[in-house]
């Protein structure tokens, strides 16, 4: 199976010391994205609730929600960029 070759590469990577560095970079990026997911999910929930309470403010709420989501995503991508730099230096 072709999955076997992928698993082989992963085992090879984990067995030398660079593998731990790769695991660290991947873990860092993943954890950073968790925060973004939670934050943007909360914005989505509040935006939907606000639009349900007051449908005529829907356009304004949508614009504001989009802007806040982009700001939070920027912060999460800080973490992703650092993880990318780590794997580039390994």
């Amino acid at each position, binding site marked *: 199976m072709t999955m076997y070759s992928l698993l082989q590469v992963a085992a090879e990577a984990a067995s030398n010391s660079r593998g731990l560095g790769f695991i660290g970079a991947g873990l860092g990026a993943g954890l950073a994205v968790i925060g973004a997911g939670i934050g943007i999910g909360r914005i989505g929930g509040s935006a939907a609730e606000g639009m349900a309470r007051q449908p005529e*403010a829907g356009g*304004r709420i949508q614009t504001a929600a*989009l*802007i806040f989501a982009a700001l939070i995503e*920027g912060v999460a*991508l800080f973490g992703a960029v650092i993880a990318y730099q780590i794997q*580039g230096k390994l």
Partner: protein
Amino acid sequence: MRPSGRILASLFRTPIALGVTVAMALMAPALATGGRLLAQEPAAAEKPVDYITPHITDSYELEIPWVNSHFAKEVCLGHHEPNGHCGPLWGPVHIGSLEVNLSPTKHVVFMLLSAAVAIVILVGSAQAQRRHQKEAGHVKGFAGGIEAMVLYLRNEVVLPNVGPHGDKYVPFGLTLFFFILLMNLFGLIPYGATATGNIAVTATLAIITLVVVEVSGMIAQGPGYLGTIFYWNKDLPLFMRPIMFVVMTPVEFISKLSKPFALAIRLFANMTAGHIVVLALIGLIFAFKSLASGAPFIMAVAIMALELFVALLQAYIFTLLSSVFIGLLREGGHSSGIGNTGNGEPGTGNRGSLLGKQGFRGEGAPTRKWYPAEWPEKLVEARASVTSSA
């Protein structure tokens, strides 16, 4: 404007001209060293070939696409080196102990291309709009679409956020938006490179914004500008002021520098991350050595649609945040911010579309249709102000 501010203004002409001049002096080393830093990442491990990094980073080769392989080629933008690769066109420029590489690369070509296309589109639309005004009384066609975007940016993004007399910041905001948008969009077409995926380019744009923000703050506030650096709050009791001065001044410094830093990183990371995801998904085909019944393709198409949205959104966010920072520093940091709805003087708050013109719980808000109801007044208002003032 205070007299000292007027003197400063006459010294600096406009903050935007000064900002661009200073930033262009800084642009070249930033462009070169940033591009070099990014190209220093090692391209491959022992066995696996790296498909992703060459498509994201800057290079000296430009790929010309064509439908058949006879005319498609890779153009070397520098000299052919003995080992077969393509090297820089010009030698490094030495500034003190710093070596700066100024030779043209792929991203430079795409930046110039975006600038040229932006000039053609915007100037052409302006001339078409003038012509249509004379003939038909209203603008039509593609120029009408560009006019709609320009007016939206002017009325909803720049003017509500930069504070009073904001008309001279509108060209700056429009330039930022259209330049960044075109650079982002050129990265999405096949064989295109995202110039904003280079940290040096986004850092240059952020430095330009920083200079515009600080200089316009200096002009608008005069000596009060120092109050935005050295924290001296007259509302505190007398013994608290030096303590807060020592504590808050580094915070103010960092906040002044971290805002453009965040702008640069946000734009760079959004553009690069999207491309990395698409390339990784296509790379699955190579990893599995089969088409995998089109699943990576479908996922990559979905991510590309998201990338298109992110390209527009990030250009909009950059412009919006630049306008907000300009407005924050011009107001002096007393009033305004995204949440201010008014009657705090001066300028009575942020009349932007984020919280709108409504009071508590929305009473008094006009029921706002999306396009037709309010646009005619705004359009007339815009044209009148354009023709009457400068």
